[in-house]
């Protein structure tokens, strides 16, 4: 469970872990999405406050149930998308987030994927709720969405196999 | 000599296994474990004799009263007191010392008077004197120890003068295990007309104590540290100081007669009942008497020697394992004039951290200041210490395991 030697986190990751930005739930959020599962140790809930006329993100916040990298990734993502249009936000990739964090250790890539996956889920959910889909929003799930689903399914499978109960983020955000 | 292996048969709790490891109980200075005999005496009282005492003619009340009174006799004999008149049952050592502070102190201390205590006192023999001094205008003089934690008897002698009304001192330090020469100190105190109160919380359970041989005026100790139940303690009051004392807690059972005809008239009860207000811890007293009988059967001299043997063995094993330089001891390393208590720190490790890691191995010790923060600060242990305290049921094998675990903790530290 614990490792005696810390992962080689970048100074940026450590800084954001120590002083995270936009942490905590948001009551007035327009849309909320969860990615990951507490069973695997990493999970994030993303809250977006959206200006519906301009289709831009006014504010974003997150709750994390994860590691230091998870917190840092969610932290930087919520900063980055503030003021961006939903289309611009959609185009953010997990590599971008990882790069801006000064690079993540390989085994922590999925933290960045989880954060971006949650963002994409939130955007898709926003349009699904309104029964519309802009042209730039692909019908097929994005790479990050797929990876998040895969991770959640694998965990769910493991838990079923061992007869355990798990609350899956994927199910909740539907 | 004493056989700890057969003694262990009497202590069911010592068979406990924690995290798959056999319990090693080295926190005896905090409280001791209880033998079957004591547990059985308590059970028997509640199933066969339970009633309130001194309050009825019915059979059970008579029986309970007899058992409770006889418990005083047993304790009196154990410490060499004249009889039950000198034995007051209280809750614990702390209450006993406070009783002296109030019942004797309020009546005998005044402006300019001095109470002499030492820096090695437990907070319970430290704070009551400052409090009572504030009430009475007396002052408290705190006598130092040397760097080895032994009392500076020269300074004590200097401090005791005709202004001194009371000397309050621990018989055995609950941190260093140092045993003070109470007999000599009592002589010094008496030569100046002062009284002496002794905190016997650590001595009475572990070494032979005879109040008349020591010549002390008050001796306080707790039942739970000497195989007895919690909630029962003893104050020995020499009949010679009785006259100087006022009552402390008053009410039920402390009187013979109370009249109110415009003004109050009270005839106080005989000793010791005058100081045992309200329904006392009856079963506690009976349990304590059983514990005292158990200790007497083993013999206090044997117990003392056994514990000294364990301390000696501990130091030897640490030396053999090659980490004596990492083990910083509070108090003397020589086993002379010392009880079965070893307080220490390990390298730079925090005492609580050490205790947590020992607990992982099912070894129970105490960590912190052990209610004697002034002594820790005096000896330069500002983070406190780890305290291992032994008793009659501890064995050399347990010390071996203890040393082995300590060594592994030392090795892990950077």
């Amino acid at each position, binding site marked *: 469970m614990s490792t*005696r030697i*810390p992962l080689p*986190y970048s100074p940026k990751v450590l800084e954001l872990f120590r002083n995270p930005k936009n942490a905590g739930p948001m009551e007035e959020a327009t849309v909320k999405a969860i990615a990951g599962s*507490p069973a695997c140790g990493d999970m994030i809930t993303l809250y977006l406050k959206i200006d519906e006329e301009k289709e831009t993100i006014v504010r974003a916040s997150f709750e994390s*149930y994860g590691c230091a990298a998870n917190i840092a990734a969610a932290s930087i993502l919520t900063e980055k998308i503030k003021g961006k249009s939903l289309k611009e936000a959609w185009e953010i990739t997990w590599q971008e987030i990882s790069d801006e964090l000064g690079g993540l250790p390989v085994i922590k890539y999925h933290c960045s994927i989880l954060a971006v996956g949650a963002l994409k889920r939130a955007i898709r959910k926003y349009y699904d709720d309104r029964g519309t889909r802009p042209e730039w929003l692909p019908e097929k799930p994005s790479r990050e969405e797929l990876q998040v689903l895969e991770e959640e399914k694998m965990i769910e499978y493991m838990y079923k196999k061992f007869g355990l109960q798990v609350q899956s983020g994927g199910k909740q955000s539907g | 000599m004493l056989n700890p292996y057969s003694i262990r048969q009497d202590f069911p709790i010592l068979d406990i296994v924690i995290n798959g490891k056999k319990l090693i109980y080295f926190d005896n200075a905090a409280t001791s474990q209880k033998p079957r005999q004591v547990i059985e005496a308590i059970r028997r009282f509640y199933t066969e004799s339970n009633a309130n005492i001194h309050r009825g003619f019915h059979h059970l009340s008579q029986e309970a009263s007899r058992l409770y009174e006889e418990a005083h006799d047993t304790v009196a004999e154990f410490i060499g007191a004249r009889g039950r008149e000198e034995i007051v049952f209280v809750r614990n050592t702390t209450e006993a010392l406070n009783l002296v502070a109030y019942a004797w102190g309020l009546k005998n201390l005044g402006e300019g008077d001095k109470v002499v205590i030492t820096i090695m006192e437990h907070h319970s023999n430290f704070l009551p004197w400052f409090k009572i001094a504030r009430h009475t205008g007396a002052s408290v003089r705190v006598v130092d120890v040397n760097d080895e934690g032994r009392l500076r008897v020269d300074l004590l002698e200097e401090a005791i003068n005709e202004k001194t009304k009371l000397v309050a001192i621990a018989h055995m330090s609950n941190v260093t295990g140092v045993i003070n020469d109470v007999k000599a100190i009592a002589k010094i105190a008496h030569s100046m007309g002062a009284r002496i109160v002794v905190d016997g919380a650590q001595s009475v359970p572990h070494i032979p104590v005879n109040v008349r041989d020591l010549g002390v005026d008050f001796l306080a100790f707790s039942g739970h540290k000497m195989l007895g139940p919690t909630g029962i303690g003893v104050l020995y009051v020499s009949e010679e100081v009785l006259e100087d004392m006022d009552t402390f807690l008053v009410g039920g059972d402390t009187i013979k007669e109370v009249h109110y005809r415009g003004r109050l008239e009270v005839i106080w009860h005989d000793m010791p009942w005058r100081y045992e207000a309200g329904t006392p811890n009856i079963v506690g007293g009976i349990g304590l008497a059983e514990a005292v009988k158990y200790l007497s059967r083993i013999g206090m001299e044997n117990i003392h020697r056994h514990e000294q043997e364990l301390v000696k063995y501990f130091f030897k094993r640490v030396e053999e394992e090659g980490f004596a330089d990492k083990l910083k001891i509070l108090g003397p390393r020589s086993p002379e004039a010392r009880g079965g208590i070893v307080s220490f720190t390990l390298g730079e490790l*925090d005492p*609580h951290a050490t205790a*947590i890691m020992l607990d992982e191995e099912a070894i129970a010790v105490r960590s912190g200041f052990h209610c004697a923060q002034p002594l820790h600060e005096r000896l330069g242990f500002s983070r406190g210490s780890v305290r291992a305290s032994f008793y009659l049921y501890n064995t050399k094998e347990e010390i071996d395991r203890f040393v082995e675990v300590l060594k592994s903790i030392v090795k892990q530290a950077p």
Partner: protein
Amino acid sequence: MRWLTEYLETVDLRSKPSGCSQHPLVKLKKLINQLREGGAIRVVTDERVIPVKTIEVIAKKKGLSLEIVSREGNVVEVYLKK
């Protein structure tokens, strides 16, 4: 279930204890007992004084996960998660 309570309270085990109940390990234990599911604590310690092993023992007993986040000389930063 709430995921994060008061976000990431920091306990600095390097602070000097001034008395029995003021010890930083006592403070850490108290905080851990108050931790709700999803809560997290950041702990900074000097390995020479309070080894990570100590924190591991406490974490294991309370069912927390532990991640060593950074290490600089003897100073270690640990992330505890319920």
